[in-house]
């Protein structure tokens, strides 16, 4: 425990040394971030009696940025350590360098060396094309949190669009909850026991590129990735008479498209990908398409209400890697536009074949200048035992209350 507390204390120290600055001044180190206390409550008994019930967790994320100009080039150093201390799950207690890189910005190009995070995509309920970073899965089953990816990233701008190139010398394993973790897959996935298709294991050099451009009302991106899949397949192993899954990382090629079309109040969106080299199908496609519409000044109030419809399709059909193989997602986002910036987001993802439903809720409100309350909930309804991988979460309806202090 003491070992785990050291980084936390260090981070707390750093956060208090910092002086809040209005503007980045050249050469000065600029520190910001937040800490959060989170409580998770579950409504039912776990499927596996070793799994925890209610849970407390402490998070600290700090970001240090320093910037200087030399000979018409701008250099930015960016470090973002992240640390979570979890009451129940020692796998969820983890440290990561979300960012630790130097960025060199020149007129038409920039170069980033170090660990960083990149987002590709257009949709709200799934991010399928997004592939550069590994999912920090212990942070949440929705998979929004990502691990810092070591990379050399070179980007340049031309009149024909924005080109991004990535060389990624080291692969990050997906994080998985420990035996005590909840929600987690059943059977247990032992994330440490990774198996690689490549003989170089996590040192396989991965490559990626993306072209993007804003063409009139459309924003288009086309991306390619060759390397270790971020989304593993699983190999069952019997250990002490119990089935345990070991993640199997294959070498894949992925071609991706993301598209957003802005038509008046409407955003029409699409993400599609083709992936080669991942079993059992070897070749498959995934497509998500839909729209987002916003009512500004909804019902003659100051509030804005967005509603989201997204159709989700996976050519593999029912499979243990993606629960949304023929689903529709319905979502709303209510922006209250009050002084506390209250925002409430809900979504329902419904399987069209067996009506398995995942319900997500998230609400946040600022309190004063530094505090923020965040309430989350997730529910899994009508989950038949055949619905992979959601059947693992059948008893794991939960809510989470978090208090964040931003500095």
């Amino acid at each position: 425990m003491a070992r785990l507390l050291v980084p936390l204390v260090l981070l707390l120290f750093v956060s208090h040394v910092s002086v809040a600055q209005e503007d980045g001044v050249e050469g000065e180190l600029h520190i910001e971030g937040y800490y959060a206390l989170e409580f998770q409550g579950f409504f039912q008994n776990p499927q596996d009696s070793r799994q925890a019930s209610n849970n407390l967790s402490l998070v600290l994320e700090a970001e240090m940025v320093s910037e200087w100009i030399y000979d018409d080039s701008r250099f930015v150093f960016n470090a973002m350590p992240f640390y979570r201390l979890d009451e129940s799950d020692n796998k969820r207690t983890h440290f990561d360098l979300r960012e630790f890189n130097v960025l060199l910005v020149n007129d038409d190009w920039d170069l980033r060396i170090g660990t960083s995070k990149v987002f590709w995509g257009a949709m709200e309920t799934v991010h399928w094309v997004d592939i550069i970073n590994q999912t920090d899965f212990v942070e949440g089953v929705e998979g929004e949190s990502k691990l810092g990816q070591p990379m050399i990233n070179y980007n340049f701008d031309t009149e024909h669009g924005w080109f991004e190139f990535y060389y990624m010398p080291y692969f990050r394993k997906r994080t998985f909850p420990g035996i005590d973790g909840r929600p987690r897959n059943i059977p247990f996935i032992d994330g440490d026991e990774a198996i690689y298709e490549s003989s170089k294991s996590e040192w396989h050099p991965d490559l990626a590129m993306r072209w993007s451009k804003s063409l009139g009302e459309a924003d288009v991106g086309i991306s390619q990735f060759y390397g270790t899949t971020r989304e593993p397949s699983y190999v069952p192993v019997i250990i002490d008479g119990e089935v345990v899954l070991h993640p199997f990382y294959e070498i894949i090629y992925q071609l991706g498209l993301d598209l957003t079309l802005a038509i008046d109040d409407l955003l029409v969106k699409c993400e599609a990908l083709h992936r080669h080299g991942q079993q059992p199908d070897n070749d498959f496609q995934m497509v998500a398409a839909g729209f987002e519409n916003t009512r500004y000044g909804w019902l003659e109030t100051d509030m804005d209400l967005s509603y989201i419809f997204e159709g989700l399709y996976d050519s593999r059909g029912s499979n243990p890697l993606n629960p949304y193989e023929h689903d529709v997602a319905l979502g709303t986002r209510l922006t209250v536009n009050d002084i506390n910036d209250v925002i409430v987001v809900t979504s329902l993802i419904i399987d069209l074949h067996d009506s398995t439903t995942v319900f997500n809720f998230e609400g946040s409100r600022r309190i004063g200048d530094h505090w923020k309350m965040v309430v989350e909930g997730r529910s899994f309804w009508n989950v038949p035992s055949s619905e992979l991988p959601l059947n693992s979460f059948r008893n794991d309806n939960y809510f989470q209350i978090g208090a964040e202090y931003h500095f």
Partner: protein
Amino acid sequence: MKLPCSTLLLVVLGGGLNAFPLSTIEDDDLAARKGLEIVTESKLRDTGYKDFVTTVTMTLKNKQGHSSTRKMTVRTLEELDKGEKALILFTSPADSRGTALLSYSFKKEADKQWIYLPSIKRVKRIASGNKTGSFVGSEFSYADISPQQLEKYTYKFLKEEKYQNMDCFVFERFPKEMKTGYSKQVIWMDKEHYRPWKAECYDRKDKLLKTLTTNNYDLYKERFWRPTMCYMENHQTGKSTTIEFHSYKFQTGLQEKDFDRSVLKRLK
């Protein structure tokens, strides 16, 4: 975004006015033409600023008198014949620090906007129909804080009258197609420098919704007037928002590439 105060109100009457009698003009055509002349002259006087950077404190007050503050840096680029581009970077409150809004205002085409969400490093397109929506909870709408393109409105000159001891033109402005949330705005602009001082904003039922007032103009580069404060009061909800401008720097050398979508990803 050139701030509302500076822009909304930038419209001023121009040359040709002396030819008209000072009394209320009856003829609609004439009033429309005179209104347009005023705004055109105002725009002309502000043309050539190239770019400017300003830091802004926005204070929101609700009906109960509780307040909350947002701080941001605003960079604006003038693109002759095309329109204007603006990049707003939030510096406070702490949880929204790093959020950025990039907007292109075009003279003719529909405007474009993107928001940058630093927590997930995502650049997200925003539908251009958002003009009526509140800007970060304030009484200013996105339309209010976006650079104003005079081509997107029609005008009607009303009268001349004294406002704070200044001789002012008073005219109405109506959105052509763009949704602004207002059926019309009545604008007071001084005759000497064509600076907007007050704008009454009417809702779709033609009821007075908000009043914008600007204060303490300073002159930059011996040509460009900018206010140091704007105040928007909502008469229907009792809420208000004050914007203070802490510094303006003109002609800092910003270029088109500084307003490309990709800059959002390389701010740090």
